[in-house]
Structures are given as structure tokens and as C-alpha cells.
């Protein structure tokens, strides 16, 4: 996703210097804004009482004691600490040094702690549920963003992540239901459903690749149209075929949660990360594989070469269009796998347009994550956390309208794209067809 304008201009040196300076001031400015937000909460919207953070559930083997804090004292302490961090970052930048990542992480955790304390005043926050739900909600986003990263690194913009997730959800549900009712083998049905979902996501990816690479159709157009097409197809078959035969065709079995023996017993981390379904464990593997693959293997080097400078890649003998085609297909399979989360991953029957924009949030995560699998995963986790925080807060009675929490990922992405948070630069040949002479 890159601008046509920029590509025809050789970036002049002064520009690059200017950007570096601006980048370094971004952190202090962002810090100051968040500190002011926290201060505003403390001054204008004080909330009495205490907040309890629950760190374990009844069923956990090792119990972690609850943390109870008085709201206002904690909030003021957080504001003070945030102000100190902001000042420290200002000093660092003034002495021409970078703001270290740990400071950003500490700042974010402090701010979240302050916000949660304030929002949960007079209630107890189930932290395990909050984090567990965040990870669950992030699963399709992470798969989708991995698909987006691979596609865009190879130079094909994938707006059709939504379509791939939806087709994966649909196919997974139908195939798993049909196999389950006809054979009665639940595990077999689930595996068949998962594979079918990957194949269907791959097919959508192949259509995208075929139109974008063989017929040179604008990739954004194909993506948009594919989204509409898949919504139409799945909704049509849902109304026409699935709804009348719901028992046989749309009652998918679900993946059980697997408790990983030792890791699952670690307090806090265990219940959040290691008592999940196999789709989540596959996701850990997928993130690691895509990261290692992209940056430490011959395959990844080729993918990135094709996406950054196809002509150079072609010169050294890489088949540009073939590489792009198969990587977009692979990306489709990954997104299709992510789609299973909506149906067989959660044991929910397929419904019309059930992905509800997850593919677009995944796209946002790709950009916010700067086309890097690990950062995109973190961005997806952040977005999952934002939407699950909204769920949790609406249960305990949120002082913030839920719509604003739901808006957060999109607003953050706009800021990220506009360059106010970090710098996001697409692979150079992203979205450009390669036409060989």
C-alpha cells in the first residue's frame, strides 16, 4: 500500500533527516498526551472506592492473591509516574538519544493500570478473563495480519483478508458439520473442516493473485470486489442451503481447550496462553514460522525481494510472478485457517457476515505493525485487548461509552498511517504489478 507519488521521486537527503528528528519527538509528545489524559481523568472525573484486580480463577492450581487498590491514590500515583517518564523521555530526546522500548512498554502498562483502576472503580476486574478473551479475540486478527504481511511483503496488497476469513469460517463450519453428522468422528470432522477452511481461503487468495498478477487488475479493486463476492456467496448459501438444513450442515463441532501440562499451571500466564484450543497453539507456531521464514530463510529473502524490487529479483533469476502467486495463495490458506476460529474454533454456527470487519482490523494491524509479523501480532493483540476491554467494562458498568473503545483500533491505525505514531513504510513494490518485458 504505497503512494504512487512517492515512488517516482528519489527521496532527497534533507527529507530523511527531517523525518528522523520528527520521529524522535513522537514518543515524548505521545507520552505527554497520555499523561494529560490520565491527569484529566483524575481531575475532572474522580471516582471513589477501590478496584480489585483478580489474578486467578477458582479452578487454578496456584492461586495468586487479589490486588486491591484505592482508586484515587492509585490514579494520582500513576499520573505522577507518567509525568516522570514523560520528563525523562524529553530529557533523552533533548540530549539526542532514542527513547528506549522498555520505557514505552512501562509507560503503556502504567497507563493501562491507571485506566483500569479508574474504570473499574467499585468493582473487581477478572484479569485472567480479560487477557484470555483478548488473546481469543486477537486470534483471527493475528492469522489475518500474518496473511496480510506475507502478501504485502511479496508485493500484493490484500484487502480481501475479510473475504478469506469469512470463506474459512463458512467452509470450516459446513465441512466439519457434514463430516461430523455423516461419520460421527468429531476429531476427523474438525481436521477436515480446518483443511477445507485453509483450501477455501487459499482459493480466494488464488483468485486475487490470478486477477492481480495475470490480468494486472488493480489489487485494491480485486480485493474490494472479492469481499463483496464472498459475502454474497456465503450469505446466499447460508440462506438457501444452511438455514433450512441447520442440523446437518451448520452445527459444527468445536475444538476442545487443551491444557498444556506444565506451562498451563503457571499462574496468570498459564490460563491465558496455555489453556487454549489447538487453533491458538497453531497460531503461536504460525507467527514464529512466518517470522523465521521471512527473515532467516531463502524463501523469505525471495518474498521480500519480489516485494521490494521485482526487477532486481527477476534479474537474479527469481520468478517474480510465480513467487507472488504462491505466496498470496499461502497467505490465503493462513487467513482461511484464522477463519475457522469464528465457527469450529468457538463452536458457533455460521452466520451471515459473521467476521464483522475482522479482516479490516487485521489489515490495520499489518500497517500498524509496519509489515513485520511480530509487530503485526502485537498490534493485533492490542486491538483484541481493546475490544475485549470494552466487553469487560460493559459488564462491570463502563464509564466510557463502549463505542469509543470499539473505535480505538481504527483511530490508532489512522494515526499510525498518518505517521503520528511511529513510521510505517510499505514494501516498495507493494500493489504494483510486475510486467515483464
Amino acid at each position, binding site marked *: *500500500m*504505497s*503512494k*504512487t*507519488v*512517492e*515512488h*517516482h*521521486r528519489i527521496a532527497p537527503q534533507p527529507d530523511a533527516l527531517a523525518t528522523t528528528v520528527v520521529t524522535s519527538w513522537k514518543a515524548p509528545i505521545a507520552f505527554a498526551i497520555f499523561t494529560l489524559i490520565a491527569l484529566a481523568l483524575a481531575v475532572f472525573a474522580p471516582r471513589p472506592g477501590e478496584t480489585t484486580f483478580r489474578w486467578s480463577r477458582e479452578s487454578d492450581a496456584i492461586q495468586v492473591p487479589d490486588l486491591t487498590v484505592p482508586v484515587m491514590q492509585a490514579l494520582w500515583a500513576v499520573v505522577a509516574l507518567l509525568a516522570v517518564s514523560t520528563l525523562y523521555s524529553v530529557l533523552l530526546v533533548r540530549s539526542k538519544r532514542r527513547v528506549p522500548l522498555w520505557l514505552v512498554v512501562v509507560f503503556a502498562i502504567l497507563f493501562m493500570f491507571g485506566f483500569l483502576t479508574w474504570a473499574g472503580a467499585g468493582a473487581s476486574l477478572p484479569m485472567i478473563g480479560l487477557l484470555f478473551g483478548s488473546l481469543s479475540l486477537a486470534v483471527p486478527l493475528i492469522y489475518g495480519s500474518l496473511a496480510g504481511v506475507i502478501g504485502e511483503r511479496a508485493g500484493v496488497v490484500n*484487502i480481501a483478508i475479510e473475504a478469506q476469513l469469512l470463506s474459512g469460517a463458512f467452509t470450516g463450519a459446513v465441512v466439519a458439520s457434514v463430516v461430523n453428522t455423516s461419520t460421527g468422528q468429531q476429531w476427523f470432522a474438525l481436521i477436515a473442516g480446518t483443511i477445507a477452511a485453509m483450501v477455501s481461503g487459499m482459493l480466494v487468495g488464488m483468485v486475487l493473485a490470478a*486477477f492481480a498478477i495475470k*490480468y*494486472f*487488475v*488493480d*489489487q*485494491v*479493486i*480485486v480485493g*474490494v*470486489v*472479492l*469481499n*463483496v*463476492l464472498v459475502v*454474497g*456467496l456465503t*450469505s*446466499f*448459501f447460508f*440462506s*438457501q*442451503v444452511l438455514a433450512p438444513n441447520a442440523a446437518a450442515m451448520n452445527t459444527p463441532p468445536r475444538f476442545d481447550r487443551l491444557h498444556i501440562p506444565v506451562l498451563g499451571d503457571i499462574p496468570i500466564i498459564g490460563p491465558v496462553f496455555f489453556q487454549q484450543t489447538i487453533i491458538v497453539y497453531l497460531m503461536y507456531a504460525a507467527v514464529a514460522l512466518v517470522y523465521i521464514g521471512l527473515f532467516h530463510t531463502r524463501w523469505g529473502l525471495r518474498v521480500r525481494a519480489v516485494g521490494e*524490487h*521485482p*526487477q532486481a529479483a527477476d534479474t537474479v533469476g527469481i520468478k517474480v510472478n510465480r513467487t507472488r502467486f504462491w505466496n498470496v495463495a499461502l497467505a490465503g490458506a493462513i487467513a482461511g485457517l484464522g477463519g475457522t476460529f469464528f465457527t469450529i474454533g468457538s463452536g458457533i454456527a455460521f452466520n*451471515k457476515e459473521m467476521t464483522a*470487519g475482522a479482516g*479490516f482490523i487485521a*489489515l*490495520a494491524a499489518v500497517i500498524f505493525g509496519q509489515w513485520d509479523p511480530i509487530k503485526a501480532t502485537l498490534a493485533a493483540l492490542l486491538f483484541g485487548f481493546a475490544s475485549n476491554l470494552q466487553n469487560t467494562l460493559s459488564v462491570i458498568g463502563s464509564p466510557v*461509552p463502549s*463505542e*469509543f473503545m*470499539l*473505535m480505538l483500533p*481504527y483511530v490508532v*491505525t*489512522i494515526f499510525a*498511517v*498518518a505517521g*503520528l505514531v511511529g513510521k510505517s513504510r*510499505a514494501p516498495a*513494490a507493494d*500493489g*504494483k*504489478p510486475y*510486467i*515483464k*518485458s
Partner: protein
Amino acid sequence: MSDPQPPKGDAPGANEPDADVAIEEPAAASPEGGTAADDARATASGPGQPAEPADVPPPSKWQNMLREIATGNAIISVLAVVLALIVGAIMIAFTDERVQQTSVYFFARPGDTFVAIWESVGGAYSALFQGAVYNFRRDTFLAGIRPLTETLTFATPLIAGGLGVALAFRVGMFNIGGRGQMLIAASVAGWIGFGFDLPWGIHMIVALIGGLVGGALWAGIAGLLKARTGAHEVIVTIMLNYVAFYLVSWMLRTEGLLQAPGSSNPKTPAMNPNAIFPDLLGPQFNLHFGFILAILATIVVWWILSRSSLGFKFRAVGINPNAARVAGINVKGMYFYAMLISGALLGLAGVSQVLGTVTTGFTAGIDAGIGFDAITVALLGRSTPWGTFAAGILFGAFKAGGFAMQAAEGVPIEIVLVVQSLIVLFIAAPPLVRTIFGLPQPGSRPKRSRKADTKGVQAK
């Protein structure tokens, strides 16, 4: 040799062989190889860039027409529609219960299956036609022609929105933010429409202008960010869709903003009668003044693009931003202005929804997917004003007929989405259509491929 042809570009679709379009689009007869070459350049040089050199003198209509038939774009458009309808027919036939029952004994009595297929597909498509154009089962002409007025009612926001997307295309931008712009425009127009008490006529105009400004400003955010920071408008508009949706949802459930007083539903009160668009053909038809506005908008966009200096700059930026900058055109300003106008047009779509079609108060679903349909309309109309107008009416017919088909034959309305998106996909890839129908591929012209190639490679 493939023949790159994005769905935007020059030749008018078969469903609108309009003289205006031909005049509008001089590139259809550009000297160096016609539409295909232009299209190749457009695809190669970036997303959403329309493809005509502005300095070519307009040739005669006959030349144009002959060239279009020769290069096959009109044929491709017809074939794309036919192909999409065939796929739709296959889907209807396969999911029809009687077809499934008779196919069990297909080899014993194949005739039954064919009859069942004929009945399901023929029934569905005749219901589609009768729901969209003329209902033969009504006694009077007035009752019979009602579906056509429904088609025009459905076409109204599609035309307005399609024009917005098309205009942005011509400046080389992709406005996917139709949904958000429509929602914001509908909210502003609706708020003025029910919250104030102004005399007849003035109220409507104030609400209309408010809505247009709302849509324009919402799109303007994307334009401004693109101009100032280089943020890609596709991403920003997609994100703004969701921001608008949640913002409007929140306002709809907050008393004192948009929620109807004394109600707990996220819905606005009904519009003030003074603000509602008047009916064009009397109260028994739904067709409202919005359709006239859509026609006016088409004329205005046509005028802007082909008769005004602003439109010249727009197209110059769309074809080659660097050349435009060198020529002294304020490229960034053009991005911003184009997004403003595009947003206002999508705003018109939103306003015609709340003041014309759904006047009893609206919810967050008021956009009814029109923001996305508008993209397919603009693509089918190849980004020309009159092409978009015709495409809007075609898709309006699909929509009106789709509802009739769902009611009469039980075929889900979503089939319309499938057919629409397939039409656009097929139009976007002429070689595919030619292969399917066994038409000869146009001979490879070395000049064209080299041109396309240099552009593609430069895109480093």
C-alpha cells in the same frame, strides 16, 4: 499475451452507449494503440488511475464507436453481464429443491431435471425482471410500471455514491469510505431534518446542504491526511468507516443527540415533513426528488471533469501526478478538493436515504451497503459520469428486482451481490472473458507491452 484492462478507463459499457461518454473520453481513440494500451499504462502506474491523455482531440462519434467494437470493450461488458447471470443461474439451479429432487433420478429421466432447472432459473430471472422493470401481472399501466420507479429509487443513492467514487478514481484515489461518509451525512441531514422547524423548501435545502458538508468533511479528513502526511486514502477511509459507524451508533443511543426522545431504541425520530424530499410521481410511487438531484449531480460531475479547469487539473493529477506538479498544479490541493467533492457526492447518497427513502427515522444501518455498492457502480461505469449513471440504474434494477425475486421465488437477495461483483471482476479482466467465450485475443502489440513494462518496472 495478456491484455491488461482495469475496470476503469475509457470505453463506455455496453449498457450505456452514450454519445456523451464518447465525447467525454477522447482516449478511446488515442493514436498510440487505443484503449488497451491506455489501460495498461493506467494499471501499471498505480491504483485507481484513469487512463486518458487529455490533449488528444476528440474524434468523431463513428470512429469512436467502430474502435470500441473493434477493441471489444462493449462486447466484453455485455459478455461480463451474461457470464455473471449464468453463474447466478447455476447457483439458483443447484440450490433449488426441485432440481435436487429430480437430479436423483437424472439418468432415468433427465427431462425432469432440465424442466426443474428451467423453472427455477426462469422463474427467478423473470421475477427479477418484473420486479425491476415492468410487472406484466398488474392490470393497469400505472401499477405495472411501478417496479421501474422502484428501480430508479434504488438507483438514486447508487448513482450519487458511484459518482463520488468515480470522481476520486479520476484523481487517482480510491474512496472506500462511502459507508462512513454516508453515515455522517445522513446523521447531519437527519439531525437538521428532525431537530429544527423551518419553512417548507428551506428546511429541505438546509438539511441537504448540511448533509453534503458532513460527508465532504468526513472524506476531507482522508484527503487532508493524504495531502499533508501521505497517508494512503484506502486505509484511512476504511478505518473512517468504522469510526463513523461507532460514532453514529453512540449518537443514536444517546438522548439529546440523535435518539428519538422517550425511546430506548437506537433510532432517530421521523423527519419533519418540511424537510422530506417531495415525491416525483405522486404518493403511490416511492420515487422522490433525490433522483432529480442524482441527475443534477451527474451533470455537475460531467461538467467538472470535462469542462472546468478544476476537472482538467483533477485528470492531470490522476494520470500523472509528477507531470501535473511540474506543470504547476497543486497536486496536494487537488487530492483534498477531490476528496471533498467525492465525500459530498456520497453525502448526497446518505441524504437521499434519510430525506427520501427512509423518512421515518433511521438506524446505524441506513447506509444499506450502498457505500460499497457505489464502488462497483463506479467500476462498472468506468469512472465516467454517464457511465456511472447507467451502471447505477442497472444495479438499482438488480436491487429492486432482487427483493421481488426474494419475495416471489424465495431466492435470497444476496445473489445480487454475487452477480454484481462477478460483473465487475469479469469486466476487469477481458482476457478471461475472451478465453471463456473463445473469442480471439487481440494480437500482441510490441509497442504496448514495452510501454506497460517500463512503467511497471519503474514502480520500484
